[in-house]
């Protein structure tokens, strides 16, 4: 069985899994990292959104063999550590706005939001309504409006 190694939430991990198994299942079924959620496996719902080297991506659509040894994968579990705190400012904003309902989409929403804000900041601009409209993450409970408010609040604190 092929052996794969990469950095996950700041720690090096090794797993023995066939090459074509998508990373979401390596995280959830093999490594027991349950923050990224399954909602489609089609790169559509974005419930599994995590970061690779600081950028948002969807592990349901990346075979584990495409992750290389120096790639850093961050899931919601590892997000606070990226700022050296108990909670990332975006998570704080989520609490402040009481965004979550069932909560199932929220790890993915927060990971998408953090990447979106970073992108805007890197381009030297504020987050806009157009940026928010670009977020594809489904929230079937309909928390979209509070998500918009929380991203704007979180962006200020980032």
């Amino acid at each position, binding site marked *: 069985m092929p052996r794969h190694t990469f950095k996950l939430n700041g720690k090096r991990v090794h797993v023995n899994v066939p090459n074509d*198994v998508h990373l*979401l299942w390596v995280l*959830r079924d093999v490594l027991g990292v349950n923050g990224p959620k399954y909602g489609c496996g089609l790169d*559509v719902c974005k419930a599994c959104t995590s970061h690779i080297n600081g950028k948002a991506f*969807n592990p349901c659509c990346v075979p584990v063999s495409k992750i290389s040894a120096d790639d850093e994968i961050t899931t919601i579990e590892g997000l606070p550590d990226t700022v050296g705190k108990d909670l990332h400012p975006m998570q704080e904003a989520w609490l402040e706005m009481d*965004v979550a309902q069932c909560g199932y989409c929220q790890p993915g929403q927060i990971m*998408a939001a953090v990447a979106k804000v970073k992108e805007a900041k890197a381009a030297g601009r504020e987050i806009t309504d157009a940026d928010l409209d670009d977020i594809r993450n489904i929230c079937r409970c309909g928390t979209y409006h509070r998500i918009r408010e929380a991203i704007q609040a979180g962006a200020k604190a980032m």
Partner: protein
Amino acid sequence: MTVMEPTRRRFIAYLVAAPTVVAAARWADASTGGGTAPSPIPSAPGAADTYDLNDLLTDSAKPTANMITVTMNKDGTASFALPRVESGQGITTSTAMIIAEELDLPVGKVRVTLADARPELMMNQFTAGSNTTISTYTPIRSAAAAAKQQMLLTAADELGVPVHRLTTHDGVVHAPDGRTMSYGVLAEKGAATTSREIDVTLKPVAQFKVVGQPHRRVDALEAVTGRKKYTLDHDVPGALPTMICRPPTIQGTPKKVHNLATVKGMPGITDVAMISNGVAVRGQTFGQCIEAVRALKVTWNPGTVDKDSDQTFLAELKAAELPMAPPPPGASVVDEAFTFYWKSNTALEPQTAIADVRKDGVTIWSSLQAPIFTQKQVADLLGFSTDQVKVHVTNSGGAFGRRMFSDVVLEACEASKKFGKPVKLMWHRTDEFRAGRMHPMCISHVRASYSGGSVLNFEQRHTSVATDWSMGFGEPITAGGASGPVAQSPIHGNYNYSQTVWNLTVNVPYNFGQVDHAIQEIRDYTVMKSGSVRNLYNADAAVARELVVDQLAKAMKIDPYAFRDAFLKDDASRSVLKAAAKAAKWGRSMRPGTAQGIAFHSEYHGRIACVAEIDARPSTINRKKRQAVTGPRVTRITIAVDVGLPINPKGIQAQMMGGAMDAIGQILTESLHLKDGYFLEGSWDDYYYTRQWNAPFDVNVIVMPATSESPGGVGEFPIAVTKSAVACALTRATDKLPSYFPINHLDPLPFEPFPTEPSIPPSPNDGLHRKGE
């Protein structure tokens, strides 16, 4: 608006012999306690009639049978197992608030968990119809009040102070001389050695400090850190990922598997077997299960609607409509019919269940709106007694009516039994749309006649593909017993459930002279896998009503708000309408191609009004997004809601906002297309539920001050009114009354449907190149 005088009614509660203070109340009091208005779903007299204090005292091994209990713990916290399912509607938060209020304990010290299936509660463990808070409010308060009373009496004894001179605050009892005792200490000292009945008085509403104040969700931290556990996150030893290869048409069945051995030999796959609904595969990872499902070669038996499409159902619905009376001679008539297409009730978390079937029993973990019903079905399926079926109710990633049905649990049990191993079963997203449940297609026809300033009559004929009420709703309705609505009718079956649900929910809140509305269904309820989507008939029927109200107003040359204000039946309704209109600045000038729409609705013991603003200008409609439907955009939603007694205004606001997102999708973008026995949709990029690019920029929810001493329903309440307001706004913005919803249903398909065999599409491999855009 005035809050009613507090009534100091006395309630019966129980102290239970236990190591700490444990107080109980009869769950069945849910049907009688506190409320004044009739409940939308008739509650059963059930439990209280068949169980009394004697039983409680003698049955010491099961002292809390038939009861719900509040337990005080040595660490000063209180615990309560709620016999309902939390699906995001915030009932664990509101329940914690109710208990905290009665106990004078911080909300953070109340631990609310979800109870396992408890058959002795009969139909009272059924999460639907926005009924949780309506029916649980008084029993929960009674038990909490009894616990507090026992701790106070104990403290009086210990401190040598008359009980009426003691006060409580934040989990501590205070004597006038400054001495204190904590609930943690009193929990142990006050423990009852024998169970007994006691009288309790509930805290007057006027003294409420927690209930009625906005409170954040108690599970918010878990949700934002990814620690919140849903079914699939439970680690049950040996329960490996399991998925099902499904038939190409709705409710088809497997006939023969041609390559079972080959698939069993695929990497990671441990088991493959045919079950009733398809072919189950079990493996090390879900990813490998997906591959195995895709590799299976299966011959299938036909399904239940292989020859049907949208058009065949449409023709049948039209032909089945019940006749209307001729309009009064000389009156002017508004006569409109609206078609509502199929809507999926899938949540974001797909159907999931863990099952471990052994020789002598089965253990199940799943998120279920009707766990007792599921338990019974599992017992029947496996030939067990219900005692041998242990059902753990887990948090759900959304329910919306879907989790009233037990199919995923039955499939998991069948697979676990065949494999002789525990399974963790998950539906694929495509299964959800193609093999899942849908709100049935229907036509709602309204005819109203008017003369001068009066509406003379209002008739509504609602014709729908049958809705399956058998799971859960069927039970409480049938259990109405000799006096129940169904028992009085000579005919039994789904038809009567439909009539009952229709008659108990659909209303016309206006003074429209002679009002007559009726439902007619086509096909047997087992033909389509039908159900409800977060609301029952009013999700469509009320929209038809409100659109015709706007047409009447237009014909009579009255402003839509002024018209409703004039015709609404009571002042309480008018004040809700007014609150929404005022906050939304009703009548403000709007640019061409944009408009406001207003609607009113009453249900779930409450009243609600909504003003929607929509932008239907070409520049907005023609926005481009990859694999998306953009279309008109609802830019602003204002809602005023009177829920009787609001428990948690923040939670209510969240529910209203969420409901408005359903409404936007259902009016503008979201539906299933039936073609030759299957639905074309297979993912969220072709089933166009509201996305960020469809979401309003501005949402404002006004929770009206209390108008009652008892709470009304919340979760499903916003759907009918927000859908109506969006539909009315669109009609005004475009000056064209739509005849079907969603308005894009008959557009050329904007997507390429997935093949039906294999039943699930492959996961893409190029995720790194998309970078999560």
